[in-house]
C-alpha cells in the first residue's frame, strides 16, 4: 500500500441527513412512488414510441433491416429501460435488457441472428400487451427463454 493515503473526509450527507427531523423512510418511498406516478403516461408513451420504431426498423416487415446497425436497436431498447417503470411488473424492461444482451453478444461474435431478434421483438410486443396480466412465473419463463437464446448464441461465438 505504499503511497496510499487514508483519510476521513467531510460527508455532508452524514452530517445533515442524520440530523433531527426529516421524514421516515417508508413515507419517503411512498411519496417518491407517488411522484413517479405523475410520469407514468409519459413513460408509456416513450415505450410505445420506441417499440413501434423497433418493429418498423428491425422487424421482419422491413426488407432492408440487414443494412441497419444493431447499435440503433441497442439504443432504442435502452430508451425503453430509461423510460423507467412505466409498466411495472410487465417484464418489459427486463425484455429490453435482454435485447441489449443479444446485441452485445452479436457484437462480440460479429454475427447477427435475425431469428433471435424476431423472437425478442415479438416478446417485447407480447409483454407490452399482456405482461402485467401474466403471473410472475409466466413472465419469468418467457424471459428465461430469451436469456437461453442469448446464452446459446454466446456459446456459438
Amino acid at each position, binding site marked *: 500500500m505504499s503511497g496510499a493515503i487514508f483519510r476521513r473526509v467531510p460527508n455532508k450527507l452524514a452530517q445533515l441527513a442524520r440530523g433531527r427531523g*426529516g421524514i421516515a423512510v417508508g413515507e419517503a418511498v411512498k411519496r417518491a412512488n407517488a411522484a413517479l406516478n405523475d410520469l407514468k403516461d409519459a413513460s408509456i408513451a416513450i415505450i410505445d414510441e420506441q417499440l413501434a420504431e423497433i418493429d418498423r426498423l428491425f422487424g421482419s416487415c422491413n426488407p432492408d433491416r440487414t443494412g441497419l446497425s444493431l447499435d440503433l436497436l441497442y439504443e432504442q431498447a435502452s430508451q425503453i429501460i430509461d423510460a423507467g417503470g412505466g409498466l411495472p411488473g410487465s417484464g418489459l424492461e427486463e425484455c429490453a435488457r435482454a435485447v441489449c444482451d443479444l446485441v452485445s453478444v452479436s457484437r462480440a461474435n460479429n454475427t447477427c441472428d435475425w431469428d433471435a431478434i424476431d423472437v425478442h421483438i415479438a416478446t417485447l410486443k407480447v409483454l407490452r400487451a399482456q405482461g402485467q396480466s401474466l403471473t410472475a412465473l409466466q413472465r419469468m419463463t418467457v424471459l428465461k427463454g430469451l436469456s437461453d437464446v442469448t446464452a446459446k448464441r454466446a456459446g456459438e461465438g
Partner: protein
Amino acid sequence: MATLRRMLDGDKLKLDGINFLLVDDNPHALQIMAQVVSGFGVRNMTKVDGAAAARQELLRGGIDIVLTDAQMPGENGYKLTEWIRRVAPEPTRYVPIVIVTGHTPESDVTLGRDIGANFTIAKPLLPRVLLQRLFWISYEDRQFVQAEGYVGPDRRFKRLGPPADTEGRRCDDLKGDLGAASQPNLSQSEIDALMKPAKVAL
C-alpha cells in the same frame, strides 16, 4: 471497516438541506431522477444533461452528492466520476457518487467501483433502491483512499480470492475505455455484491 445496515421503514433521513446534482442526457430519465429525489423531500437539486455541464456545476461548488447516468454521448458517467475523483478540487473530489445505469455487465460495475463511485444502481430507478444507497452513504464510515491506482471510498470487500487463471484485478489492470458491452447484465444484488463494503477478516 464499515458495515452496512438494512434500512427500516421507521428510520428517518433529512435530505432537505442536501444539494443534489442530477446528470442524464435523456430528459425523461432526468425527470424520473428529479421526481424520485423530490419525493424524498429534497429541495435543492441541479439537473444537467451531460458531463460538461456537470463539471461546471461541480467547479462552482456546493454540490453534496452526484447521481449520474452511466451511458451518455461524448463523456459518459464513468469519465465524469474519474474526473471528480482525480481532477476536481477539494472538497468536491470527495463528493459521494451514485452511478445509475441501464446496462450492468460486470465489466461496467467493476469499472464504476474501481474509479471511485460509491454505488451503482440498475435502471429502472426504484425509489427504495436509491434511498437505501443514500441511507448507506449517510451512515457509512468508510475512509477515503488516495493512491496512484485508486481514488475513492475504501473499497475493501469480501475476500473471495482472485479469479482462476488471472494475474490481477487492480484498477490498473482495467482499460479506461470499455467499448461495447459483451457480457450479460448483472442483477441489483449481484451489483451490490461487487460494490458494498463489508467487514472482512484479512
